[in-house]
């Protein structure tokens, strides 16, 4: 198993380097092809329309130049100009509406796929960075890609403009037209040269930004500890250092893009200068009119806008590549293709899924008889810590307690077993059958889990317990009773409907823990996994909880605990030390033979 895992990882790393941005864009454009097409037509029109205005200018000068007396043609010009403006206003309004919707759908798809990817990863290592950085990816990187997609419309419109403009200009004067386009080639060349630098600066700037927001997130997460320590100033000093770094990186990034912009922008002045140089002779001879000159200069400004936009578009696409590589970290196997996968994004309430009905599933699963764990291993990347070579088995309805000092690997063992950490080595068997994807298998109704420090979400107590189950299909009251939560609920203003979290009621550590336990009970799992639930519970409450659990014990329990009350209940105790099983057996035997057990049991 170990070797195949490594191979897979290597493959993924190989793929990470190769991101076909255009392919990914195509995939996004074809997500809502109809909407994209309408959007495209509207924006093409918006971009092509100025051609008409250029022709109007040309016609205006021609009329003026021909005779010095008033003609009705001038009124015609005025009327056409007014109609043009009105039509364009309507066009832009509809374009804006459609594009905003399309943009939203594009980023919603990416964010949806990223979020789902995070939820599907092993829970204890769901993101490879701080949550502040992850939020940055959700915000900025997705926005970059969203821009890229929306700008494809502008590119298409601009290309159409350039082609038509080219035809008109060539029909007036070939030499000048060619001269106008020379700077364009030059500009594209320069962009290519500078773009790798721009990419590097962009990445640095993003990273520096991520560090700042990440640190801010951590500061506000640890606000209590900081306040107690009275170290506000030092923490702010730390943030200041990160701020300065970001300042430096952002400055580099902006300056380079401004320089590029400047070069693009200069093409219009340069071009105008060239046109004047050549036109001097032609106009003196009468080979070129003032109307022609005005048309050239007018179109030139658009064509130069196009070159600048084109360069910008290319630069943004490079940036989008960086963004894709960053958001790919969150999806399945780190594959960029997964970020743009055509999954449904329901944008009206009808599209939402039904609540889950547990009773449907229970028949399908094989009832737990025995779980075998063989040579299970997991090693954290950042440190030497982890577990090695852990083997044991559990029988149906047995109570297994994992005990050991801190850092001995108790929690890691639980997490590796039920797939909250990605499997590295070893195997797990359920009724003799090998479980290849523990992260998919060890969920309700097979298994449920209460973490050592459970997290609740900002919602009602009831929704936190049900957590997506339909109320009808479960015995909510029983779960609450078993979790010793009924007294607490009576004290809450709205009982089960009390809102908790930052905007609602703040629960104590013990209450959070018992809500999490109720959340587990309500799922009625075959295997219940508790990670040291007693740390936030007082003795009386904990005793009540265990006794209520044993009263109706139908489930197999795997418990991390050092408490006597739990140890005494155990059918089997596993003593962990330095990431390995140090001893295994019944309490009485271990107390006699195992020094580590004696130390934990205490005097």
């Amino acid at each position, binding site marked *: 198993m170990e070797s195949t895992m490594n191979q897979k990882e290597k493959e993924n790393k190989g793929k990470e380097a190769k991101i076909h941005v255009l392919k990914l864009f195509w995939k996004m454009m074809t997500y809502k092809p109809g909407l994209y097409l309408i959007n495209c037509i509207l924006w093409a029109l918006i971009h092509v329309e100025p051609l008409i205005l250029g022709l*109007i200018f040309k016609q205006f*000068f021609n009329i003026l130049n021909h005779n010095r*007396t008033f003609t009705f043609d001038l009124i015609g010009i*005025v009327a056409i100009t007014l109609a*043009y403006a009105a039509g*364009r206003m309507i066009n*832009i309004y509809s374009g804006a509406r459609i594009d905003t919707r399309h943009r*939203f759908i594009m980023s919603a798809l990416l964010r949806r796929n990223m979020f789902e990817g995070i*939820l599907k990863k*092993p*829970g204890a290592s*769901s993101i490879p960075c*701080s*949550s502040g950085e*992850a*939020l940055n990816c959700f915000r900025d990187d997705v926005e970059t890609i969203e821009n890229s997609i929306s700008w494809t419309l502008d590119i298409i419109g601009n290309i159409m403009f350039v082609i038509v403009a080219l035809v008109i200009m060539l029909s007036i004067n070939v030499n000048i037209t060619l001269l106008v386009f020379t700077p364009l080639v030059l500009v594209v060349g320069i962009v290519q040269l500078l773009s790798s630098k721009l990419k590097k600066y962009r990445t640095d700037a993003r990273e520096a930004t991520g560090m700042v927001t990440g640190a801010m997130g*951590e500061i*506000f*997460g*640890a606000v*209590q*500890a*900081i*306040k107690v320590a009275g*170290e506000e100033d*030092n923490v702010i000093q730390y*943030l200041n250092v990160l701020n300065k770094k970001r300042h430096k990186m*952002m*400055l580099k990034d902006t*300056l380079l893009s*401004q*320089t590029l912009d400047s070069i693009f922008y200069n093409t219009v*002045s*340069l071009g105008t200068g060239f046109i*004047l*140089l050549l036109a*001097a002779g032609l106009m003196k001879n009468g080979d070129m009119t003032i109307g022609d000159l005005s048309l050239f200069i007018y179109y030139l400004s658009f064509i130069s806008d196009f070159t600048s936009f084109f360069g910008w578009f290319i630069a943004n696409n490079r940036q989008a590549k960086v963004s894709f590589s960053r958001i790919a970290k969150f999806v399945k196997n780190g594959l960029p293709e997964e970020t743009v996968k055509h999954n449904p994004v*329901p*944008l009206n309430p009808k599209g939402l899924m039904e609540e*889950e009905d547990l009773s449907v599933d229970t028949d399908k699963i094989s009832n737990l008889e025995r779980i075998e764990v063989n040579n299970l291993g997991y090693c954290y*990347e*950042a*440190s030497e810590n982890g577990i090695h070579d852990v083997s044991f088995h559990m029988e149906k309805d047995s109570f297994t307690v994992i*005990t050991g*000092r801190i850092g001995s690997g108790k929690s890691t063992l639980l997490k590796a077993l039920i797939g909250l950490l990605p499997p590295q080595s070893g195997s797990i068997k359920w009724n003799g059958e090998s479980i290849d994807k523990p992260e998919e298998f060890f*969920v309700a109704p097979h298994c*449920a*889990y209460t973490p050592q420090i459970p*997290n609740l979400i900002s919602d009602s107590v009831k929704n936190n317990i049900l957590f*997506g189950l339909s109320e009808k299909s479960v015995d909510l009251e029983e779960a609450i009773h078993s979790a010793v939560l009924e007294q607490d609920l009576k004290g809450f*203003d709205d009982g089960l409907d009390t809102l908790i979290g*930052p905007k609602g009621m703040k629960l104590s550590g013990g209450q959070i823990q018992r809500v999490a336990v109720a959340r*587990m009970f309500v*799922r009625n799992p075959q295997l219940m996994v508790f990670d040291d639930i007693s740390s*936030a519970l*007082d*003795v009386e409450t904990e*005793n009540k909880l265990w006794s209520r659990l044993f009263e109706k014990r139908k489930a197999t329990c795997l418990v991390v605990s050092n408490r006597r009350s739990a140890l*005494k209940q155990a059918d089997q105790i596993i003593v962990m030390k330095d990431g390995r099983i140090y001893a295994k057996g019944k309490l009485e035997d271990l107390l006699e033979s195992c020094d580590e057990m004696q130390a*934990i049991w205490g005097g």
Partner: protein
Amino acid sequence: MKLSFNKYKNLLSIYLKNSKWLMAGLAVIMTGSIIIQLMNPQIVSWFIDGIGAGKPTKMLIAAAAIFIAAAFGQQLLDIVATYLSQNIGWSTTNQLRLDLVRHCLGLDMTYFKEHQSGEIVERIDGDVTALFNFFSKLLVSFLNNILLMAGIILLLIIKNITVGLTFTVFIILALIVIFKTQGKAVENYKNNREITAKFYGFLGEHIASTEDIRANGAGNYIMNRFYALLQKWLPLRVTANLSGYKIWITLVGVYGIGNVMIFALGGYLWYTNQITIGTVYLMINYMQLIERPLEQLKEQLQDIQKASASIIRIEEMLQMKSKLEVVNQESIKNEAVSLQINKVCFEYEENSPVLKDVSFELPMGKILGILGHTGCGKTTLARLIVRFYDPVSGEIRLNNVSLKSIAQRDLRDIIAYVTQDVQLFHASVRDNITFFNNKIEDEVILKTIYEMGLGDWYENLGEGLNTILKPGGGMSSGEAQLLTLVRVFLKNPKLVILDEASSRLDPVTEKLVDRAFEKLLLGRSCIIIAHRLGTVQKADNIMILEQGRVLEYGVREKLLEDSQSKLSELMKYGIEEVLV
């Protein structure tokens, strides 16, 4: 608008004070750039008239060459201007970020109870970044555009008074129309930013709870909630974006009128022989030149709109005052402290009291054990003593000095509060221990670690104090707890509050830490909060809290002698637990 302009002025005057010279440089560069921009159309106009007047080709070509050179010069100036404005922008907004973080850290805990950390970060960084555009772009471009328009009007008036005045009227009308279009944009942007912040708050919260979601198979449920939020967001974003586009649409109409104006006026003046065709071209050229400012003005208005939404929220944040009263301050110099609690009542929300009429006194150097069920108010009492909140009524005193009269800084030095909640920074072990206080020397930290008997643990760290802690990097919550304990040991406080401090430690480590605690508690006053009896064995006094009231308070030994006391009863229960 008026309101927000005043607010800009306030912010500008505070935060731009230090950039005076940079701003002066910026002004010089901008003036140069504007002169070049105004000059170039004049060259083209002269060129056109020159052809009509039959000027020599050499002169025409020279004019074209000057045109090209001037264009290059202008671009160079723009790059320098960007450099300066970016520098100003980043230093000012970074200062503002720091000030906001500092301000937030100074708020009482009620604020943090009500706002998720992701939401606060989105406010501070997101809003300030929106403001950044305001600082860096608005200053350069806004003034640039205003001056450019003024210059155009001036030059046209010199050329032909009718043309100049018509342009003036046109620009004024255009600006009025554009400003009128702003309408409800501020509100729309605010709504959009609010739901955006809510969305990231949601993401942050759920990314932190993946373990819970995953292990309970609630993925689909959470995805549903995610979609529901998107559904709320979409219409708000469309409305907000459309109010941005409104200005562009208005501008298209304005240009249309402008062109009609040129066609009519230019034609009339040409037919009546009042201007040359070069001047007609100049009108068109200048009309195009003010298109850019008007169009940028549009973007700047959008930035202003975004910024005013942000500014309103930043102002709201800055105006939020800590609910903790500050009175004239006294300092506490004594070596040890005593604690007096007098008739303290407290509630987080109205009408749900958490502490009811709690009174007791802790003499100097004594250890108080507080026992009680979860939710009885133990932790709240501790939070009041470290002054995260002030009591609703009653008073807390240290050495008979009211907490309100003790400087926050002194209070932090006097009291150490250790809880079971531990949050780690993505930083080195050293920084996690010292909270980035680099004045604390490594030797002192190491000495403390070894004194605490944590040598083994320390030696297992990959790179000693430099080991960087990563989220999900395999540090157990017990180990994380140890870090906070080291922090407290370094601080040398006079009153120590241990709130279930060792509950996450295994018995072996707990014993180690206990020994260290004994050293720490020597000569200090201490409060130990526990729901386990074993934890308070060292206590001199015992208090039992039940539903926010003091059920029993007294010297531990005396309480134990009294067989009627609740403590004796509990002890029996505790012993029973051992015997079962």
